[in-house]
């Protein structure tokens, strides 16, 4: 812990982020304002209360209406929003200075009490947003434009987690009640709520008084089109300008249309085959390595995902802080797999249970089937069992899956800690424990300085790679359909930000 301490103390000096003093996150657009942009997603928010809605498709809507304290820009840098800077007073105390002169859409003034109100509501045990303030002890108003947040332990991920916490107006909440706010949201964001036909469309109008400059696009419509093929059809017909979760197999259908383009991000949803390293043959490192050599991951990504995935060397995707670019994924080498199995004492392989969800992740059932095929070729007879997601996730939470199973994960904070938790000790979502690696992991997760933290993460990954507690698979790419008339860039953290976009 001493290393972590020093790192934190070094950061105690007033820490103003690079670029923070420069222009705010958004430069007012020069293009003529006006026009309507229609976005289609496969799901819609259940509520527009930013504290209640925690799905990505929901954040895409709520973060147009509510500003968080910080956000990431298209280049992936953290930029100030309602906060203008922060100071780490001591390892467990952060002070945020807030933007002045900002008003909510209803005229209510934004100040420190709004931030405290929002954090306090998220801290309530039954709040779905509780995970964003996990580790936070309390918040305190220092002066009208300064808020202090106290954490139980050093919490380096506080900043990225706060990026998903839209700041709500306390007076409005208290006057109207949370269930009214759920359908009549009021934030400080670039768009104000206009109307919502549930299960059909949600309309937002530009906030002309936005502190970051009025958005160029006057009206944004979020349409719900659950069927992936119908969503692509609506995109092809020109009815919608932007679609999320573009089905990879339909990408060729828009290839010849100059009005339509497909934008791809490296993505953050990492799909892996977990191994219960506490049971049977999987206790042996050589067996686990053999399984990694046995599966042709490139062929799976190419043939099943249509190429819209990146084979990873560990469970940390390239978009995360702390990614180790020097590692190369396990090669497809069936001979080596067999040799390693023989060395481990399984020349004739073994039989084992393989569990998989069906319909939760892109082509999950087919991927599992392919992996089972490769394992069989190496002599490992995996008995493939499919589960409906509700049951599957229930078993996952109860640590009942295994010995081999497929699962996906993503870190909204874009930090390797969230991935490495899956190979840490003593948590419900890990099936592996190594005291040496754990010591590094604990040290890393308490290191506030991002550079030092990343270095520790990079130190961990070769060890994990060698230990192979997982069949490391791939990261799904984010695929968007964008009409050429819309000037918009997708972001790796999946944020869908329209305040700076323009239309032709």
């Amino acid at each position, binding site marked *: 812990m001493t290393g972590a301490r020093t790192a934190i103390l070094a950061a105690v000096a007033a820490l103003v982020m690079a670029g923070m003093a420069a222009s705010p996150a958004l430069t007012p657009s020069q293009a003529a304002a006006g026009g309507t942009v229609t976005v289609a997603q496969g799901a819609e928010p259940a509520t527009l209360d930013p504290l209640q809605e925690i799905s990505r498709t929901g954040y895409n809507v709520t973060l147009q209406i509510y500003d968080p304290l910080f956000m990431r820009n298209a280049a992936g840098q953290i930029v100030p929003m309602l906060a203008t800077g922060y100071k780490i007073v001591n390892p467990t105390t952060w002070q945020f200075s807030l933007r002045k002169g900002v008003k909510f859409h209803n005229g209510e003034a934004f100040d420190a009490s709004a931030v405290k109100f929002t954090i306090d509501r998220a801290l309530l*045990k039954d709040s*779905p947003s509780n995970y964003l303030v996990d580790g936070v002890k309390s918040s305190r108003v220092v002066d009208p434009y300064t808020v202090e947040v106290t954490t139980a332990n050093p919490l380096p991920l506080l900043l990225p987690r706060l990026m998903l916490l839209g700041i709500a107006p306390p007076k409005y909440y208290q006057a109207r009640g949370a269930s009214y706010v759920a*359908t009549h949201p009021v934030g400080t964001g670039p768009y104000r709520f206009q109307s919502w036909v549930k*299960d*059909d469309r949600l309309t937002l109008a530009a906030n002309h008084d936005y502190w970051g400059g009025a958005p160029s696009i006057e009206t944004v419509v979020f349409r719900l*089109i*659950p069927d992936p093929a119908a969503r692509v059809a609506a995109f092809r017909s020109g009815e919608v300008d932007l679609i999320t979760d573009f089905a990879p197999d339909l990408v060729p259908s828009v290839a010849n249309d100059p009005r339509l383009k497909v934008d791809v991000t490296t993505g953050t949803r990492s799909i892996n085959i977990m191994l219960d390293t506490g049971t049977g043959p999987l206790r042996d490192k050589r067996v686990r390595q053999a399984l990694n050599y046995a599966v042709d991951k490139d062929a799976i990504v190419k043939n099943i995902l249509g190429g819209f995935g990146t084979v990873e060397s560990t469970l940390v995707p390239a978009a995360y802080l702390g990614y180790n670019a020097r590692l190369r994924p396990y090669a497809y080498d069936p001979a080596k797999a067999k040799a390693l199995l023989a060395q481990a004492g399984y020349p004739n392989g073994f039989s084992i249970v393989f569990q998989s969800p069906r319909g939760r992740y892109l082509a999950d059932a087919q991927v599992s089937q392919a992996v089972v095929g490769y394992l069989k070729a190496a002599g490992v007879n995996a008995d493939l069992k499919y589960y409906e997601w*509700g049951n599957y996730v229930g078993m996952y*939470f109860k640590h009942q899956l295994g010995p081999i199973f497929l699962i996906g994960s993503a870190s909204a904070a874009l930090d390797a800690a969230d991935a490495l938790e899956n190979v840490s000790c003593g948590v419900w979502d890990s099936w592996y424990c190594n005291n040496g690696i754990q010591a590094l992991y604990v040290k890393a997760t308490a290191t506030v300085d991002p550079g030092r933290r990343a270095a520790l993460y990079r130190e961990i990954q070769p060890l994990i790679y060698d230990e192979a507690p997982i069949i490391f698979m791939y990261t799904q790419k984010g695929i968007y359909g964008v009409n050429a008339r819309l000037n918009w860039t997708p972001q790796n953290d999946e944020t869908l930000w329209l305040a700076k976009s323009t239309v032709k």
Partner: protein
Amino acid sequence: MQRYVARRLFQALLVLLGISAVAFALTHVIGDPVVLLLPPFEAGQAQVAEMRHSLGLDRPLLVQYAAFVGAALHGDFGLSIRQNTPALGLVLDRVPATAELASAALVVAVGAAVPLGVAAALRRRRVVDRAALLFSMLGQSMPTFWLGLQAILLFGVALRWFPTGGIGGFRHLVLPAAVLGVFSAAGILRLTRTSMLDVISEDYLRTARAKGLRETAVVARHALRNASLPIVTWIGLELGTLLGGAVVTETVFAWPGMGRLAVQAIFARDFPVVQAAVLFAATIFVLATFCTDLMYAWLDPRIHYS
């Protein structure tokens, strides 16, 4: 007649009670609702216990069921877990959209199926008949999602005649109503044809013709009226089914109806909404069946209820 109606009503209530038991049980069969509902991160035991208590899931099952039925009779299915608003309200919000699509689909279905079925019966084993049977076979065997997507690609993307989905004016209604209507039409057509064939060789038709009635009058007034009993039954049941929401069509055409609400609620483990939707759809279905029974009396004076 009154006793018949009373008995029928009593039976309908029994059916609803049975469905309420199934709806109640279902949510407990799919797994522990608390575990399914918790967000994907570690939840403390205290949090699980607290949630279980606040949802009343720690009481005996029979007590939970009695409370469920009692509240349901007052239209209270509790708050949607996902949306934090009354569950029945969410269902009722979807009724106009579902009713719009269901009635349009039924108009399409009856409008296409009854004339075609009659024509097929009158021109048995000829081109019209074969074409009608082919249409009926295709209509029933083509998966709705496939037909819907083809319709979207042709009329929405290639020709741009109609929007690809969503709710709006008449133009938005055309494609989903047609696709849903074709599926319903298939069954009605076959039944119309068979029922017409049954009566077409009856003596009273020969008599009608012999006394010099025009063929249209013979068909409409004598043949169709007598053949209509099973057709009306079928249409009544079909209406009941359609009003329960058409999940696949609603999904493909992004139609904000009840079927999709129910399916979303199932996926989200939002059991108050699932229960409200199931019981509402069941009530509509039972009512439709009940009304169909009553229609018999009007259509067929021979039926006496004693």
